[in-house]
């Protein structure tokens, strides 16, 4: 009970200080937005984060139409075609799909191009696992590409026919060339078809919601960075308490030294937890950051990161001898840990050496945890290791703080 009273008293003092709100909430929101907009483009075209399903593409036809189909498939939002040699055996292709190396195989049968302008159109052969959501995605993607292809071919045929009416072709070669040109135009016009503008835009919107956006990096980064900055106020309370004699006075009541430490730790933990909750809610709701995609994982990383930050606050509070030192001991580690730990620039974009060095900082593990959720769409299992390591850092910092406090 005394522990809780002490913690609440700390929180009351933190709330009384307007700087708390500046450091804990206002600054991280501003910097999340600034960094998010500044690095807005860094995840586009990045193969590593391509969320589309990979599918095999086997061209047994080897005629002029199949490259067009390949190009159309490549533009798909849902699937990403990977070319296979035409002579790969069916068994081999089936094995690849069965073992989930690829979501599906698309085979363009011999004579496909020839058959398209006719009434006896050949069908594409698709190998896939039955009744899977990936299968449905592949079918939709292929269907969309084939629709575009047949529509384009019709348009090209129609155009060639009209042209022949007014201005007959000199030779079959000329006519074929004209057809190819028209087909190319028709396919190209699918990129910006005036009449389907609305539907493609809607599709693009939805896609963005599922894909990581630039805020997915800046949100956890700035949140962690400013949680450390926010320790200035909380750790300052410990220093003032020692200097004013309030600590001595507390010790004349029935509370023990250990209980005092736990009370302050609890206050810092709650402070950071409240901060994280508000910032995560804000980013998830207004910036589309996918914290809610794996709620349990988010909760685990949030709790362990908050524990770590609080333990660091305890260490600062017990090491610093003055309020000036509190500021120094908070801001210097904040810059070093945030910089090295990838809170500013994602560690994937740095050299392997930097990445290795970075992972000696707890911030890197907090970032890993959050990014596994919001950038890589992973779940609870992916954050177990970061959470465990954060707990390790927590134990180390808290242990040092206890040692300092008892030694005083």
């Amino acid at each position: 009970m005394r522990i809780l009273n002490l913690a609440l008293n700390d929180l009351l003092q933190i709330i009384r200080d307007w700087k708390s709100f500046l450091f804990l909430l206002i600054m991280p929101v501003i910097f999340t937005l600034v960094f998010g907009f500044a690095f807005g483009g860094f995840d586009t075209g990045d193969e590593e984060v391509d969320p589309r399903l990979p599918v095999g593409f086997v061209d047994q036809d080897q005629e002029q139409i199949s490259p067009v189909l390949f190009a159309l498939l490549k533009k798909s939002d849902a699937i990403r075609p990977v070319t296979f040699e035409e002579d790969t055996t069916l068994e081999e292709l089936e094995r690849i799909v069965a073992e989930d190396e690829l979501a599906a195989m698309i085979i363009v049968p011999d004579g496909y191009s020839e058959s398209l302008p006719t009434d006896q159109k050949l069908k594409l052969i698709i190998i896939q696992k039955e009744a899977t959501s990936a299968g449905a995605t592949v079918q939709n993607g292929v269907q969309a590409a084939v629709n575009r292809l047949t529509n384009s071919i019709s348009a090209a045929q129609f155009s060639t026919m009209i042209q022949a009416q007014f201005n007959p072709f000199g030779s079959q070669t000329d006519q074929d060339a004209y057809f190819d040109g028209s087909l190319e135009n028709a396919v190209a016009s699918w990129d910006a078809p005036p009449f389907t503008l609305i539907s493609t835009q809607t599709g693009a919107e939805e896609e963005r919601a599922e894909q990581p956006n630039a805020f997915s990096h800046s949100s956890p980064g700035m949140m962690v960075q400013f949680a450390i900055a926010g320790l200035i106020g909380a750790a300052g309370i410990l220093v003032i308490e020692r200097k004013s004699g309030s600590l001595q006075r507390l010790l004349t009541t029935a509370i023990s030294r250990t209980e005092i430490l736990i009370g302050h730790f609890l206050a810092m933990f709650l402070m950071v937890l409240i901060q994280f909750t508000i910032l995560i809610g804000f980013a998830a709701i207004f910036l589309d950051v996918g914290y809610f995609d794996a709620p349990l994982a988010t909760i685990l990383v949030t709790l362990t990161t908050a524990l770590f930050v609080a333990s660091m606050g305890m260490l600062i509070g017990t090491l610093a001898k003055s309020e000036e030192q509190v500021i120094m001991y908070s801001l210097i580690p904040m810059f070093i840990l945030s910089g090295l730990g990838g809170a500013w620039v994602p560690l994937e974009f740095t050299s392997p050496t930097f990445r290795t060095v970075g992972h000696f900082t707890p911030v890197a593990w907090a970032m890993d945890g959050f990014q596994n959720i919001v950038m890589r769409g992973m779940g609870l299992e992916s954050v177990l290791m970061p959470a465990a390591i954060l707990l390790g850092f927590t134990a180390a910092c808290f242990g040092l703080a206890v040692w300092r406090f008892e030694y005083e």
Partner: protein
Amino acid sequence: MSNRIAIQTNNLHKDFGEVYAVRGVNIEIQSGEIFSLLGPNGAGKTTVISMISGLLKPNQGDATILGHSITHEPLAAKAALGVVPQEIAIYEDLSARENLMFWGKMYGLRGAHLKQRVAEILETIGLADRQKGRVEKFSGGMKRRLNIGIALLHEPEVVIMDEPTVGIDPQSRRKILDSVMELNKQGMTVFYTTHYMEEAQELSDHIAIMDHGEIIASGTHAELVKIVGELDRIELNINTESDRVMETWKNTPGVEKITAENGQLHLLVNDSNLVLPQLFEKAAQVGSRITSVEIQEPNLETVFLHLTGRALRD
């Protein structure tokens, strides 16, 4: 309540490495009295109090509060004790009321009883109309009063006050002294430390004088003053540097002790009527003139001067 021993220390020792802050202190404070520990800066008063209130472990010796040993039954001892620290140990960011509420909870008070005690204390320390104001904005005297009020919340039988009037204006000081006497009238035992002999003299039933970590004298005011016997205390000013004058006066028959403080000379003499003429004469011989003389009744200052050869205030 009467005839019980409120605080007893038994051969308390404390050193901080090289510094021997307290060396063998024995004091006994009866329930219901005001007991003052008088001593100059650095005498060891706060160290004694820290040991009695369980903040410092004695190197040797023990203390009991209402019979509870502070080393063996710290919780029972602490429960009976209210401590007003020398520093102003309050939360500046909070209001007077919030401070009292918090400390009340730390002393184990709850609910309606807590609220009632807070209201009573606010009246006692005269801060009822400023209870919502942030302590940060308070004057030194107001902070001191709040500092005292906190120690009284849990209605302790024994209150220790460590120099509660340091650094405040005479008016606030008066208020504090009055409330100490009022609390004592209500039955509270008060252990009071100070380096103002006037405070010790006015408040106390018993006084102990401390210097260099030791109790050098103790008793009632009257008993202490008797130590200096028939000695008179003379305070005088001269119109030149004091060194040469002091040198010649030292060997004058009847002069017991002589010290200089802020240009003023303090002398302890056997009979001022016999000694004074000689002082004038000897001063003139070295070219000095006495500009003012005051003969005083012996007081605690005299006692301290007599026992240590130094002035109480430095």
